């Protein structure tokens, strides 16, 4: 480990924006580039810069049901951001690197399993694509994602909600005060993956002290127990005290300290829109922490002020931490039937709002409760774009570790749905064989993606 390097893919997408004045625009990583180049960190022997790479359409289809097709939801910039994460992961698994930082945009942690459009500045989920890539290409089983963005990583949570092998921990500003309005302690995962989703909402205004209380007393102990083979940090930087969208008071050094403690294999940039006052410093701090360098000389020009943390709010966080520790420790003793009922399917209804594209989506998600595997999932999704007919699709997802019975049953469900007249598109995602099908009812045509080179 000692003499291995930290890999960096810096992809600021200087020619890509959601719209000219949108926070997710060309300028976002400009000052970060200036800072990183001027410091000369790319000349440090411990840091190696890599050229970005495109993810394949197949890599995206392994995670998402893009409506109508992957190609209609992603631009090349999205594929480069996702591909940069998988590129670094390849080098880490092959032993070339000890860890890596995908300092890339556009971000992805609000992108859910079904994608009708852009929500929370995200179209496809870079971390989720990485997780499925690691399982398919490197045989990695247990993976943890720790989301340090000020916004709840609801997309990542949605994708792995029923996945017992992926631990998702998100701490973020309390959803009652910020987009997307979710991420409460009672969101703990489905019946097959109970307590594999952990949410720590933080009251606005808290700083590094509380941040590190959560890290030391909840995140690190849980990771210690879970023993993931690979740790991913969804490295949002909008908890910074100067962020225009968030109201937290974390500092660049606080982020660096967190990175050192978490020691992730890969950090993937998410949000963070204080492009001048925070990003140059936080990105530099994370990179130095990953490379094992001293970050104590990094200081933002503005200071967070001497404001004492509000003791009541800090105490509230401590209570949540205690409560979640308790849930985690008793996760295997809890009576799941009491929480989730006893049916063969567990189902939940979701209303999803796409803030960027103004789409309203209604979902009915069902997961097969299988004693032998995580169970297949079906999703009935209707999206209202505000014009024309709402699109209505049906999705079937077979998990990576599916049992034969679930796989067979899921294929039947897919065939049945193809006969129904209510859906425009019907999708089948078989992660166990890496095969993805899509049926267009109007055209009576089925697309098959069996890997790169097919259908691309």
């Amino acid at each position, binding site marked *: 480990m000692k003499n291995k390097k930290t890999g960096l893919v810096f992809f600021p997408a200087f020619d890509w924006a959601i719209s000219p*004045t949108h926070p997710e625009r060309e300028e976002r990583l400009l000052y970060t580039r200036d800072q990183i180049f001027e410091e000369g960190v790319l000349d440090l022997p411990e840091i190696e810069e890599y050229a970005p790479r495109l993810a394949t359409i197949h890599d995206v289809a392994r995670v998402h049901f893009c409506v109508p097709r992957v190609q209609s939801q992603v631009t090349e910039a999205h594929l480069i951001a996702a591909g940069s994460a998988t590129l670094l992961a390849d080098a880490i698994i092959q032993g070339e690197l000890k860890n890596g930082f995908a300092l890339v945009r556009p971000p992805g942690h609000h992108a859910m399993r079904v994608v009708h459009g852009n929500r929370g500045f995200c179209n496809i989920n870079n971390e989720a694509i990485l997780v499925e890539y690691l399982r398919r290409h490197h045989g990695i089983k247990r993976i943890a994602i720790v989301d340090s963005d000020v916004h709840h990583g609801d997309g990542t949570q949605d994708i792995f909600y029923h996945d017992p092998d992926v631990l998702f921990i998100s701490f973020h500003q309390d959803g009652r005060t910020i987009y997307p309005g979710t991420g409460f302690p009672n969101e703990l995962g489905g019946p097959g993956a109970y307590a594999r989703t952990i949410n720590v909402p933080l009251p606005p205004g808290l700083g590094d002290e509380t941040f590190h209380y959560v890290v030391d007393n909840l995140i690190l102990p849980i990771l210690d127990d879970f023993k993931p083979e690979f740790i991913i940090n969804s490295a949002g930087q909008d908890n910074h005290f100067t962020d225009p969208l968030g109201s937290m008071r974390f500092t660049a050094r606080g982020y660096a300290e967190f990175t050192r403690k978490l020691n992730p294999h890969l950090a993937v940039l998410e949000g963070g829109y204080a492009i001048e006052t925070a990003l140059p410093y936080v990105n530099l701090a994370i990179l130095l922490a990953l490379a094992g360098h001293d970050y104590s000389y990094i200081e933002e020009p503005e200071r967070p002020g001497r404001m004492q943390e509000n003791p009541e709010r800090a105490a509230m966080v401590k209570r949540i931490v205690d409560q979640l520790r308790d849930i985690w420790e008793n996760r295997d003793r809890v009576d799941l039937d009491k929480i989730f009922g006893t049916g063969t399917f567990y189902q939940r209804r979701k209303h999803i709002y796409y803030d960027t594209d103004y789409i309203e989506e209604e979902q009915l998600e069902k997961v097969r409760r299988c004693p032998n595997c995580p169970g297949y999932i079906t999703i009935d999704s209707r999206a209202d774009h505000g014009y024309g007919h709402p699109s209505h699709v049906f999705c079937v997802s077979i998990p990576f570790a599916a049992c034969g019975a679930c796989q067979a049953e899921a294929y039947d469900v897919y065939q049945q749905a193809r006969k129904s007249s209510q859906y425009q598109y019907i999708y089948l995602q078989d992660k166990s064989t890496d095969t993805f099908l899509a049926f267009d009812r109007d055209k009576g045509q089925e697309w098959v993606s069996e890997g790169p080179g097919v259908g691309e």
Partner: protein
Amino acid sequence: MYIGIDVGGTCTDAVLLDRGAVRATAKVSTREDLLLTLLEALDEVMKGINGELIERVVFSTTVITNLIAEKKYDPVGLILMPGPGLNPNLYRFPTDTYIIQGAIDYRGREIIPLRLAEVDRVAEELAARGYRKVAVVGKFSCRNHRHEKEVAARLRWNYPNWHIEEGHQVAGQLNFPRRVVSTYLTCATREKYQFFVRSIREAISQRGIKGGVFILKADGGTLPLESSLEVPVETIFSGPAASTLGVQALMPPGESAVVVDIGGTTTDLALILSGQPLLASRGVRVDDMLTHVRALAVKSVPVGGDSVVERVGKDIVIYSERLGAPYCLGGPVPTTTDALRVLGLTRLGDAERAREAMQILGGPLGLSPAEVASQVTGEVIETIVQEIENMFTRWEQEPAYRVWEVLQKKKVRPSTVVGVGGGAAGFISQIAARLGGYPVIPPYAPVANAIGAAVARPTLQVTLRADTEQGFYIIQEEGYQGKITDRSFNEEKALELAKEWLCKRASRYGLEDCMEGLEVTRREVFNMVRDWVTIGRLIDITVQTRRGILYHVGGGGYRYEK
């Protein structure tokens, strides 16, 4: 008529060109005294030619390289203003380094003020330690040089005899540690370089040459002799640039090729892509320190025609050093050239002695001379081919920061492999075969480097950065900061302004005739948006005079590069 002179480690090559034709060539041994070497080469190609007929003399120089390698310069003290960021103790510079307060950010705003009392205290310490040369460098000084200027002015006021260099005048690109090194080396070598330039100037005028005298730089451009005084460090490592430009001149225009320059102990590899030599993306390493000096992307491999071959136990090993001429040419020990001789791949030297050399190596191992010879050449070829492959990979792996840059990346493998340098003839066909390309040894290959020097174009560039919100612009190469008064200042106006500055610079250097065919090599515009409103623009523009060569050589006639 043009003269090109390239000074190498062992040999100095010179050539006299009359339009597209080579009129004379010369090869002299490189002596201790660089000036004498240059003049000897010059006199040899000028035999019987009136000095007045010479329109242009271009030479490469190793004066700075030697000064630095032998550390024959006065000590330089460093005063740095790194501000917040990396731990400044991580930077290790080979001299006394003083860190003072003061910091500028990426947009040139002051974030920590200077303390002049601290400057005075540090200056006293430097004086007490005997320093008279000081380099002053701040982080982001290329975005605002105020702190550097203030410190330098203070030092000059207190110590009028000191030689002070400011970072922003030496290196305008981002990368603070490299700026420190470049400024340090400039400060260290400028005085001695001045002396060298003066002697050259005198010697040349004694020979009645009234044409322009130019110095070749590592990036393949040239500078008028006097102007090179501004950037002495840019004259290092120009040898590989000379050979690459030479190949460019000897090849049809617009072609792509791998250039393999096999010398006595090193082989230099370079790429010509669509007729233009590939530039390295980062500055060169000098004396194990990273600088901002731009150079062609050249990889040196420590193997050549005079490389010593020895038997170590049961292995036959090729060493990077040279112990004299090859055995077949009367040298003391077996070399790679002896192996080529045995295989009939060169006609140099005596065949019998070459066999003898291989026998010395292979005899005790029961190997025939032919077996030893093919083993040795095989290894040389393998090493070079491997490095060429690595070079392609590195080039393909260059980072890209825009979507279109990522999408346009493709595998390019030039099909032409050009051999130059003394050792090329024996190896090049096999190297080309391994790479699946065609071997080419152009006419005048042994003096391609001197030809490259003779036809290298003068290059000048100007980099403009405008911050319309703050209302100022910077000309990096000039260390100039000016106000933007025009409220409708935009990209087009910025480009015009950059061109104006380039014109001014060109006329100062007496290079007005280079202004044709300007190239815009960088054009970046970012809208600054705050709270959903565009409040200004950041515009970065680099314009330069055309790079490359003045004309192609060979075939009797001459073709100007379009």
